[in-house]
């Protein structure tokens, strides 16, 4: 039996499926938590700009600084650096929940920036019209700005899901589980290229599916 031999009958149900489930869990939890916080931060980044509905220079500067500091840190280093914070919040530095925490921190600032950039495309005239009707700031944000930017936002989130799948693979290093750990431990470290490439193929299919769903949703929202 060569190193690259795989017993598919046991590998698929015992290794691949659980790993896929773990990845899906980590990615969806991260997208849910970081997605919501990132939406709020991104909306604040946009609306606190000069001349916008919540214009506030100090808040805008602080938010921009935070995003610019965290985003360039390579995720693998962020994982290690977050160690103390992770154990304080989650209770442990290892495992899936620890990975989700680190992924949320890493993703939230990227999401904030993507949200902000997609909201820039909102026609200021539409916001002005809503103001002219006497709409409150929160109504303008939730009932005008976000719906108007929804199509691009969906595409932005789709882009981020793929980035988060990438993060989840690295989380394998801290015992995060999932496809990343499978490829690393069973594939790379045991010189079993077949497993590595199988996992890569699964990730490619996953990413393709996410992109397809994102495109469909965005097209439905934008009716194009």
């Amino acid at each position, binding site marked *: 039996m060569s190193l690259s031999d795989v017993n598919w009958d046991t590998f698929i149900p015992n290794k691949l499926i659980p790993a896929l489930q773990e990845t899906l869990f980590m990615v969806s939890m991260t997208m849910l938590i970081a997605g919501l916080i990132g939406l709020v931060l991104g909306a604040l980044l946009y609306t606190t700009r000069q001349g916008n509905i919540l214009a506030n220079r100090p808040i805008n500067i602080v938010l921009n600084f935070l995003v610019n500091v965290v985003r360039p840190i390579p995720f693998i280093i962020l994982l290690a650096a977050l160690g103390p914070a992770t154990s304080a919040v989650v209770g442990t530095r290892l495992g899936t929940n620890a990975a989700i925490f680190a992924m949320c921190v890493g993703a939230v600032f990227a999401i904030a920036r993507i949200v902000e950039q997609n909201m820039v495309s909102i026609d200021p005239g539409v916001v*002005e*019209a809503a103001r*002219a*009707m006497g709409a*409150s700031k929160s109504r303008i944000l939730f*009932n005008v700005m976000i719906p108007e930017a*929804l199509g691009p936002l969906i595409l932005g989130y789709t882009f981020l899901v793929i980035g988060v799948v990438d993060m989840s693979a690295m989380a394998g290093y801290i015992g995060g589980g999932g496809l990343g750990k499978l490829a690393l431990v069973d594939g790379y470290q045991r010189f079993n290229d077949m497993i590595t490439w199988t996992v890569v193929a699964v990730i490619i299919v996953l990413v393709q599916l996410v992109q397809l769903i994102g495109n469909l949703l965005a097209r439905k929202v934008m009716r194009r």
Partner: protein
Amino acid sequence: MSQVPQTASRGATEMVELKNVTKEFKVGKNLVTAVNDVSMTINRGEIFAIIGYSGAGKSTLVRLINGLEETTSGNLIVDGFEVSGKRESQLREARTNIGMIFQQFNLMNSRTVAANVEFPLKVAGWDKAKRKARVAEMLQFVGLADKAKNYPDQLSGGQKQRVGIARALATSPTLLLADESTSALDPETTQEVLELLKRVNNELGITIVVITHEMDVVSSIADRVAVMEKGRVVELGNVYDVFSAPQTATAQRFVATTVKTSPTGEEANDLKQRHKGYLINVEITEGNDRLGQVLSRLNERRVRFNIVQGGLETLQGKTYGTLTLELIGDIINIDAVVAELQTVTRVQVVR
């Protein structure tokens, strides 16, 4: 033109009052005065036009009326409510009483036509049944009942502006602000939208402030007009009075966009090349029949005349314009003719 409406006429005759209103913007380190010490009154039930070139401050002025821009100094009162000096949150209720339409329509592309018209009603806190009924009524009024479920990007420019009008009027405001509302439309659609604005004024008794750089818009719907230049109102009055006898260069140039006025420069030289007689320009005004009488007796003075250029326009049911005449005869006789013409109208020698 518009009558004083029975339904909306409450309180004073003033709908909008501006007293020494000034608006300054900071552009980098410079202070730009967009609106400079403007005082005027817009009456209840009229269509009031503000005309000027881009950068004249008219769009800023109209945004001061509903508080989208804050006044720097002066007082601005709309329907008895002081808008100037108020914060955004204090203006919300007043704004449901002021509709606004825009050059680029500013409809929400993520919502259907019906949902766009419904939005201000939600803002104003109407309950669902009342909202539905009002949306149907407004779409009927603008002739788009069959487009209720369409999205704005499925409509033509004229249809979009009609949705804009339905949306602006949904909450039954007493005042409608129209900011270059036909500037993005072709001439035919422009007429459609202007007709609709006239109906809004006549049938619903809503006061309308129209911002435009197009003379046609003013001449087809407005009762009174203010001419703006560099942040100031330089002429104000009945449309006929202002445009039949424009005082400022700006107003004269606007008049020249619709009727041929006294020829100058190249045009005058060209006319003189082609016509060797003595060229004069006579002003035509409504009800002046004495000019015709003088012209019909030119034979007696041994002077012939040709009409070589001219333009007449009807404004508010009254004619105005100019004709350029070529007078042929002895110079002494021509002088006498010019002197007589000067007793009946304004005469200018073409130089």
